[in-house]
């Protein structure tokens, strides 16, 4: 049984469609990312899965129950953790007080001090929340999401507002939770976050899912052309290279190819034979951001560093 199962999910507010015909599954222990521009329906989808919002149509199961079923909602909420998009913590409690209060809502919470250590607020445990920085409050928010020791954790843009080290610490925490078997459903705008954390990703655009797959293969990312770049060796003209190349404008030359293995073989063989140095040699595949922008700007995936990639079909 998957941790989350969504079939033909739709949600409308009057004439306004928030999501339409959304389908995906999240396996237990998986980190699944939902990507999409603002207004694409990510938060609506997550809120339906949490049981916070009712759906208009389709079938949804969270941890094996319908999240809209009021008879099992209390049970479900002991099993899920939620980190909201916006900060929501009372200003006058201390870090320890608010975590202690929320721990009391769950049958098997994590020890409060353990959570404080995990979110890196050990030194601030007795400080009032209003005295914490924005990033520290955000980390406390994550702490409130995991205090109940959830089987399934919903993270709605969890690192927005964090500095780079705070982001890395939150990533480490998410990896730790995932390694311990917690299923994570993540929404984010950060492509590096998806690449660092997600086992699978789905892109929501125009209120429906337009692509899904692993971060390395979504929308044919692993199948498209690559760009090989290097500095032209001194005394060597472009014409004498074993494969056609073109200047990149930054003092390097570029080769665009879908057969990178053969091209690299030819190029490095030529360099070794002629004792040429290929300074700055790199092989670049189309980035996840290129894929994302291509999907969400309606023109298919952009060319990454000069390459075309295949357009992914809908699931």
């Amino acid at each position: 049984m998957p941790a989350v199962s969504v079939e033909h999910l739709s949600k409308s507010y009057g004439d306004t469609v928030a999501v339409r015909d959304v389908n995906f599954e999240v396996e237990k222990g998986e980190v699944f990312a939902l990507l999409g521009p603002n207004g694409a329906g990510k938060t609506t989808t997550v809120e339906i899965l949490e049981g916070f919002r009712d759906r208009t149509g389709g079938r949804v199961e969270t941890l094996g129950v319908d999240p809209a079923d009021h008879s099992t909602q209390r049970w479900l909420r002991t099993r899920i953790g939620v980190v909201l998009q916006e900060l929501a913590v009372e200003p006058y409690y201390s870090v320890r007080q608010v975590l202690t209060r929320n721990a009391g809502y769950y049958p098997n919470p994590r020890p409060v001090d353990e959570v404080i250590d995990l979110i890196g607020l050990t030194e601030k445990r007795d400080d009032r929340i209003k005295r914490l920085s924005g990033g520290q409050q955000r980390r406390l928010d994550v702490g409130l999401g995991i205090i109940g020791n959830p089987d399934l954790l919903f993270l709605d843009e969890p690192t927005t507002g964090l500095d780079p080290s705070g982001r890395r610490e939150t990533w480490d925490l998410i990896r730790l939770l995932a390694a311990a078997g917690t299923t994570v459903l993540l929404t984010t705008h950060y492509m590096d976050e998806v690449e660092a954390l997600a086992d699978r990703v789905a892109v929501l655009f125009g209120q429906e899912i337009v692509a899904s797959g692993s971060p390395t293969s979504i929308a044919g990312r692993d199948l498209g052309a690559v760009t090989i770049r290097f500095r032209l060796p001194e005394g060597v003209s472009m014409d004498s290279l074993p494969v056609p190349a073109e200047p990149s404008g930054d003092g390097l030359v570029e080769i665009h190819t879908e057969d990178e293995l053969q091209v690299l073989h030819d190029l490095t063989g030529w360099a070794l034979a002629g004792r040429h140095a290929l300074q700055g040699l790199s092989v670049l595949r189309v980035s996840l951001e290129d894929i994302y922008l291509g999907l969400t700007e309606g023109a298919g995936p952009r060319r990454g560093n000069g390459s075309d990639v295949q357009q992914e079909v809908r699931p």
Partner: protein
Amino acid sequence: MSATELPVKGSFRGVGDLRLVARQVRFEQLSFWLNPIGAVLTIGFSVVFIVIFLSTSGHSTVGYLAHINLGQYYLPAFAAYGIMAACFNILAITMVNRREMGLLKRLRLSPLPTWMLLAAIFINSMIIAVIQIVLMLLVGRFGYNVHGPQDIPAFVLVVVVGMLSFTALGVGVSTLVPNADAAGPVVSLVFFILVALSGLYFPVKPGSGLSTFTNFFPIRHLIVACVDSFNGIPGASIWNDVLVMALWGVGGVIVSLRRWEWSPKRG
């Protein structure tokens, strides 16, 4: 979820739940007292005012109320104010702020059932109201020789119905306020005008135009019922006042149920 664990149905789990409510009330109280400025202003405002009014009321009497001393009028009137301030004014502003800060949404997503959350919030408001009433009764008795309540069961009934009704109204009004910035001005402005017109600062004679107008609102009925039961005014009946307050309370419940939102309105 382990393979053998099945979902548990239902949202009430007996005595354990009542302990959870008590625990939540404790945290509500902690939150209230952790903001000392807010707590002192809330509690202190009514106490300071009763001291001022009792100190300046002298030997004046209220003719239409069996010539009771003015102090005997102000004490129960300010007890009514304490109920309204805690259960209506502060509650409504707090609920708007909690909603707009996303605190209600966070609690909605926790396993704490809605009824427990609301029960804890209501009980917390009532505790604050009772603290104010007790303090004022002590100040009145030992500082200004004001005695009461004469009709204790009636006074207790009026206080309880007043707290329930104004709590319902406080929650109802909070659902009508679009954002946190508007909460204080909107709620307080309406509240303080009606409180003044309803006879908190000066007795309003029954049958006057002002009393006819303010009789429509529950505030005057709470003040009148508190004054009558506190002094055991001969021939006075609290039942009409209790009924009007209860009807307003039912109205507050209906508005709350129809307009309640867990998410910020950001209007």
